[in-house]
């Protein structure tokens, strides 16, 4: 019988383990920041101070003004608000939303809502490496009637970094505001310039779940798509989860301070996975751009292997990874990102590293993966096909 070693968590792109700074801040704020920051008594003033300090810290980390940044109940809410607020704010200019074909599902769901309400959505293709087709993007945003454009900063599924500065220049030429989904960029790589709206999600950088960031630059014609109250500059309604927000802001600052060193440490491990998987697992397609990519995320697809079976086999050996294969999704459809790239979608594995990932973790994964894949192929009778 196989005796499993300590678990190796390799799905930071879904949720990174809680940063110790986040845990510390969360516990302190549970004691100190439970009151409604909108009220006028002593406890509320203390809560307000914590909220203001969190906002100031997050804004400084992202190099934006504090009044441009709102905390939302999740990254998904922030993405919905970004897209729907962007098209609402410019509805007199036009009704078209331009977006890449590889946006996060939260952006695509918001786009569906926009279309259901009578708008149009224009998806822009990517190449086989998952990079935006810039010529098609430039033509799409320059067309008449474009209200808003959305581009993921780097693919959350395959890691390819998108040409945001060039895409932003095309938007600027056309006078179209650009929204960048920075969920996989923040506290990993420097933020690109040229965007008008930006979102992120705290649990991707080691903050607690249930906190998103929505940044709307001054002068952007953005209008909240939600019923509006006085919270968060009217950008997202309801009292924020203040302890979680405090923890998110504290861990953002800590993770961003370590980002360059962590990228230097993790990028060679990602390169090692790319090279070794391609060399040691037969009939595998390592996807995403080999160079222009996130430092912590790598994706590959194993021919003839059932993605769900592969995830379970890896889980039994203690490895937590993600997959874009159709059998692992509730809709039984393959990942729209892999589909847009035209790469193999079954037997797909996404590995994403974080601050607790060690070289030994990666080595153990690389040592065990070829045998896991070979066993599954032998069981399915597809060896040698």
């Amino acid at each position, binding site marked *: 019988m196989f005796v499993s070693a300590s678990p190796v968590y390799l799905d930071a792109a879904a949720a990174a383990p809680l940063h110790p700074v986040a845990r510390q801040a969360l516990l302190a704020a549970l004691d100190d920041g439970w009151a409604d920051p909108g009220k006028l008594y002593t406890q509320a003033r203390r809560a307000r101070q914590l909220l203001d300090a969190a906002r100031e810290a997050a804004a400084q980390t992202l190099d934006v003004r504090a009044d441009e940044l709102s905390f939302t109940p999740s990254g998904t809410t922030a993405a919905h608000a970004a897209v729907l607020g962007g098209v609402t704010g410019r509805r007199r200019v036009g009704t078209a939303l331009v977006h890449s074909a590889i946006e996060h599902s939260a952006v695509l769901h918001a786009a569906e809502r926009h279309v259901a309400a009578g708008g149009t959505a224009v998806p822009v293709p990517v190449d086989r490496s998952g990079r935006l087709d810039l010529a098609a993007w430039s033509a799409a945003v320059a067309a008449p009637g474009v209200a808003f454009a959305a581009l993921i900063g780097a693919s959350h599924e395959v890691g390819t970094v998108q040409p945001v500065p060039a895409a932003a220049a095309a938007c600027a030429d056309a006078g179209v505001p650009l929204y960048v989904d920075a969920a996989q960029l923040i506290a990993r790589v420097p933020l690109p310039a040229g965007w008008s709206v930006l979102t992120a999600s705290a649990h991707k950088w080691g903050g607690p779940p249930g906190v998103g960031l929505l940044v709307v630059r001054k002068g952007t014609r953005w209008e909240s798509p939600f019923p509006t109250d006085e919270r968060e500059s009217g950008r997202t309604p309801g009292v924020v989860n203040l302890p979680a927000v405090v923890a998110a802001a504290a861990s953002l600052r800590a993770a961003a301070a370590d980002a360059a060193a962590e990228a230097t440490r993790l990028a060679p491990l990602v390169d090692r996975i790319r090279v070794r998987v391609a060399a040691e697992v037969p*009939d595998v*397609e390592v996807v995403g751009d080999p160079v222009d990519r996130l430092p912590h995320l790598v994706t590959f*697809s194993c*021919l*003839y*292997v*059932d993605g769900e079976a592969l995830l379970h086999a890896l889980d039994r050996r203690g490895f937590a990874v993600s997959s874009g*294969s*159709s*059998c692992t999704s509730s809709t*039984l*459809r*393959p990942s729209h990102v*892999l*589909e847009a790239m*035209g*790469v*193999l*979608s*079954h*037997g797909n594995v996404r590995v994403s590293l974080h601050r607790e990932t060690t070289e030994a973790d990666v080595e153990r994964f690389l040592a065990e993966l070829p045998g896991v894949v070979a066993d599954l192929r032998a069981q*399915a009778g*597809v060896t040698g*096909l």
Partner: protein
Amino acid sequence: MSEPDEVLDCRGQRCPLPVIALARRLPELPVGAVLRVLADDPAAAVDIPAWCRMRNQQFVTAHPDAPAYDIRRTT
């Protein structure tokens, strides 16, 4: 649509089964033959062309309404 040399019915099968069936059958056909794979799993639309690229076989066309995919053995 022009008639294929053989039809492989993989309807109702989940990926990767249609691709596995294709990989088993195509090498048994003569070079130049066209195999039509009927497959209603949405992943087949992605994975059959990807398999052709990885295996240097020719993806002739997709018939989205069927749904069916024509593959020519080239090597």
